[in-house]
C-alpha cells in the first residue's frame, strides 16, 4: 500500500493528538474517572505504531489481519466507553434505576437491529469479499455507535438526568463523529473500491480529518477543569436522609400492595 504525504501527515497528527490527550487525561486526573476511555486512547496510540511498522515491514496479509484485530478491539472498547459514559449519567446514586436500565436495554437492542438491517441492505462494489466485509463492518459499527449516543441523549433528557461537563463533552465528540461516520461509511459502501479509488480515498481522508477534529475537541474540553461542586451542609444532608427514609418506608407499604412496573 502506497502512502501519500497527506496520509502520513494525518497518521502522524492522529498519533500526536492521542499522546497529548493521554497526557491531559492523566494531568487533569480524569483517567481514573474514565478508565475505558483512557484505555481506548492508549490502544489507539499502540495501534498507530504497530500498523505503521506492519505496513513498512510486513506483508499485506499481515497488515490486513493486524488492522482487523485492532478494529474488533476498537469496537469492543468503544461499546465499553458508551457503557462507561452511560453509567456516569444514568447511575447518579451508584445503581441503575430500574426504569432507566430497562429503557436503555430496549434502545440498545433496537439500535443493533436497525444497524444490522442497514448493513444488510449495503452491497459495496468491491473486487474481493474481504474488502466488502471490511466496508460493511465499518458501516455497522458507525451506525450502531451513532444510534447509541443519540439514545443516551434522548433517554437522559426524558428522565431529567443532567450531564457533568466532562462526560457531556466526551459524548458530544463521539456522537457528532459517529453521525458523520455514518455519512462517510455510507459513501464507502456506495462507491466501494471499484467504482472509484479516488472517491474511496477522499472519503477516508474526510473521516480521519473529522476524527482529528474530534480528538482536538476532547483535548480542549478535558484541559479545562470541571467546576468544583459545593457541598451541602451536613445538617441539611442528615435531615433530607431522615425524610427520605420515611418516604422509603411509605413506598415499601405501596410495594406490599402490588408490584411497581
Amino acid at each position: 500500500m502506497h502512502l501519500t504525504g497527506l496520509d502520513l501527515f494525518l497518521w502522524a497528527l492522529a498519533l500526536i493528538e492521542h499522546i497529548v490527550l493521554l497526557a491531559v487525561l492523566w494531568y487533569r486526573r480524569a483517567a481514573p474517572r474514565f478508565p475505558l476511555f483512557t484505555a481506548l486512547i492508549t490502544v489507539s496510540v499502540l495501534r498507530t505504531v504497530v500498523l505503521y511498522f506492519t505496513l513498512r515491514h510486513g506483508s499485506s496479509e499481515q497488515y490486513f489481519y493486524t488492522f482487523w484485530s485492532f478494529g474488533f478491539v476498537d469496537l469492543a472498547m468503544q461499546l465499553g466507553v458508551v457503557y462507561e459514559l452511560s453509567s456516569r449519567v444514568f447511575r447518579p446514586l451508584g445503581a441503575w434505576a430500574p426504569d432507566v436500565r430497562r429503557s436503555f436495554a430496549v434502545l440498545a437492542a433496537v439500535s443493533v437491529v436497525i444497524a444490522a438491517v442497514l448493513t444488510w441492505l449495503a452491497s459495496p462494489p468491491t473486487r474481493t469479499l474481504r474488502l466488502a466485509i471490511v466496508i460493511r463492518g465499518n458501516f455497522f459499527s458507525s451506525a450502531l455507535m451513532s444510534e447509541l449516543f443519540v439514545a443516551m441523549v434522548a433517554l437522559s433528557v426524558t428522565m431529567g438526568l443532567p450531564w457533568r461537563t466532562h462526560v457531556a463533552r466526551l459524548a458530544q465528540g463521539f456522537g457528532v463523529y459517529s453521525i458523520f461516520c455514518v455519512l462517510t461509511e455510507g459513501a464507502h459502501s456506495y462507491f466501494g473500491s471499484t467504482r472509484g479509488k479516488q472517491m474511496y480515498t477522499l472519503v477516508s481522508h474526510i473521516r480521519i480529518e473529522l476524527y482529528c477534529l474530534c480528538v482536538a475537541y476532547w483535548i480542549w474540553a478535558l484541559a479545562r477543569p470541571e467546576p468544583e461542586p459545593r457541598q451541602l451542609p451536613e445538617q441539611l444532608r442528615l435531615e433530607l436522609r431522615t425524610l427520605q427514609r420515611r418516604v422509603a418506608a411509605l413506598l415499601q407499604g405501596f410495594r406490599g400492595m402490588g408490584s411497581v412496573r
Partner: protein
Amino acid sequence: MTQLPFLSAVAVFLLALVAVAIYFVARARRASRTTWMELLGRLKQIDRDKVAVIALDLLEEQEAEPALDPEMIFEMIGGMDGLGAMEQNCDVLIDMAAYVQQWYPEALEISEELRLNAREIKWHIGRLRGASERGHLFEQFPMYAQRAVATYYLMTRSLLILYEGGHIPGFTDLQRAL
C-alpha cells in the same frame, strides 16, 4: 440502481437520527434555561393544608388505624382531578430539585430520589385512574390514595428543607406555593 434501497434507507436513517438529536438537545437547553418563575407557574393549585391533614393522619397514626375515611380523603384532595394535579406537580418538584444543582451539583441525589418517588406515585395514581374508569374506584381508593398523598407531602417537605437549608433564592415563593 441496486444501491437505491441502501441509499434511501441511509438518508432516512441519518435525517431521523439528526432530527431526534436536535430535538432532545433543544429540549435539554430549554429546560436548563427555565426560570424560577416558569417553574413556579407550572405548579398546579393544591390545598396544602388538606394535603398535610391527609398525610399526617397516616404518618402520625402508624400504629393505630387512620382516622380519615376514603370518602373524606376523596373530597379533601379534590377527587381524581386533585390526584391528577398532584401527579403533574411531581414532575415540577423534580425539576425544582434539579434547579438547585446550579448551586449544589450534589443535589442530583435528591432529584433522583424524588424522581423515583414520583414514578411510584404516578404508577399508583394510574391504577386509581384505571379503577375509576372501570367503576371500581372506591374499592381501590383506600389502598392507594392516602399513601400517595402522604408520599407527595414528604416530597414537598424534602424540597422545602433543601431550599431552606441550602439558602436557595426562591425559598419564600416555594413555601407559599407548596
